[in-house]
């Protein structure tokens, strides 16, 4: 049995780098598209509402792993010759946009109607009504759920391992195959995920409590 030395740990850290990169790309890309989804979902156009409702239902009703597979092979099929990480990042962006869109839709609808009416009465047009009145309040309300989804996304990036992409989990599998110490390796990998996700979970939970006391 080989031991787990600095080299193995370094390899895991290289994987961790990709886990974080995928998470950040997915979260930012998903945030931008998610905002569009949320706005379309709450818009006055029935077509936009129905279309985004379907979009969200598809992503919430299928496994993330399948979304990865379909986008991964679909991108190649459409004739784009891109790196594996681009395909995977696109998949996570689409996934995140559906979930964040649904979370923020809830936030937008939780803002009291009087706020929109007041903004209308003041003569604000759509952009400024959304940007200055509704969205700041909506995002505040949905911040705990957004952080919850970020944790979900960090954990979700582990599925890129099944597509063969070397992030933290795949790096763990490789090191485990080399050293024949699966328990130690997966314990280390698990602890790394935990150290990233736990503070975020605690932050989200404390924010949720604070919002609850504020609204009481």
């Amino acid at each position: 049995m080989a031991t787990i030395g600095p080299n193995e740990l370094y390899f895991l850290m290289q994987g961790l780098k990709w886990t974080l990169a995928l998470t950040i790309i997915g979260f930012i890309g998903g945030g931008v598209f998610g905002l569009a989804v949320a706005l379309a979902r709450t818009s006055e156009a029935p077509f936009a509402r129905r279309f985004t409702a379907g979009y969200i239902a598809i992503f919430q009703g299928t496994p993330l792993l399948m979304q990865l597979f379909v986008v991964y092979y679909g991108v190649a099929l459409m004739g784009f010759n891109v790196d594996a990480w681009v395909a995977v990042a696109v998949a996570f962006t689409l996934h995140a946009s559906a979930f964040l869109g649904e979370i923020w839709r809830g936030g937008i609808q939780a803002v009291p109607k009087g706020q929109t009416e007041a903004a209308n009465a003041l003569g604000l047009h759509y952009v400024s009504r959304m940007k200055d009145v509704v969205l700041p309040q909506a995002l505040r309300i949905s911040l705990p759920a957004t952080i919850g989804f970020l944790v979900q996304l960090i954990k979700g990036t582990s599925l890129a391992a099944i597509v063969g992409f070397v992030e933290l989990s795949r790096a763990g599998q490789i090191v485990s195959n080399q050293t024949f110490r699966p328990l130690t390796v997966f314990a280390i990998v698990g602890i790394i995920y935990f150290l990233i996700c736990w503070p975020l979970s605690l932050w989200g939970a404390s924010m949720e409590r604070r919002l609850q006391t504020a609204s009481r």
Partner: protein
Amino acid sequence: MSYNLDFSVVVDRLPELLVACLATIGLAIAGMALATVIGVLGVLARRSRFKLLRGLVIGFVEAIRNTPFLVQIFFIFFALPQIGVRLNPTATAIIALALNGGAYAIEIIRGGVDSIPKGQVEAGKALGLHPAQIFRHIILKPALRAVYPSLTSQFIMLTLTTSVCTSIAAYELTSVAQKIEADTFRSFEVYFSITLLYLIISSLMMGVFALISRVSFSYPVK
């Protein structure tokens, strides 16, 4: 280079895929049932007088909720043989799903239990009910009713998570799909069709959950 989509490989092996769908549903139902048991027992342990037991449950819930299912299933897959338990991948997958779903169920059911007004429990005591009767009729039942929507949507997520069990070669829809893909090289067609099958499975489950809610939670209370 142009690529022609060919879904005939999927149509040819549809019977195989439908049986695999049943396996996926079976895994999901077994996971949900055990997760509910773990959820209720965990909430009981979380309310116990023993600090150590409470701490263990909190630690378990946090550990599961803050690590990926993939890492959990690998850990369990390699850990069980070390303590002398040899199980086939499917049984291992059920254990992993039960533990994962159980941690979320503890957290959800606890939320429901916390929402029961104290006066209800006091009323139960005043009526001379046994603590077990109080827990069952006054705390657990209304709590489960209150958290039914969030518990079932967590169970839908658990159903979708079963696809990750392919990583330890458990028999379910995704692993069968991977086999067909390896035979035919029709990756996109296979995974696209499987995605639709998952969509059907999760929609069916949502329908069944809504039906259960209508039948058993409709007023007047049965």
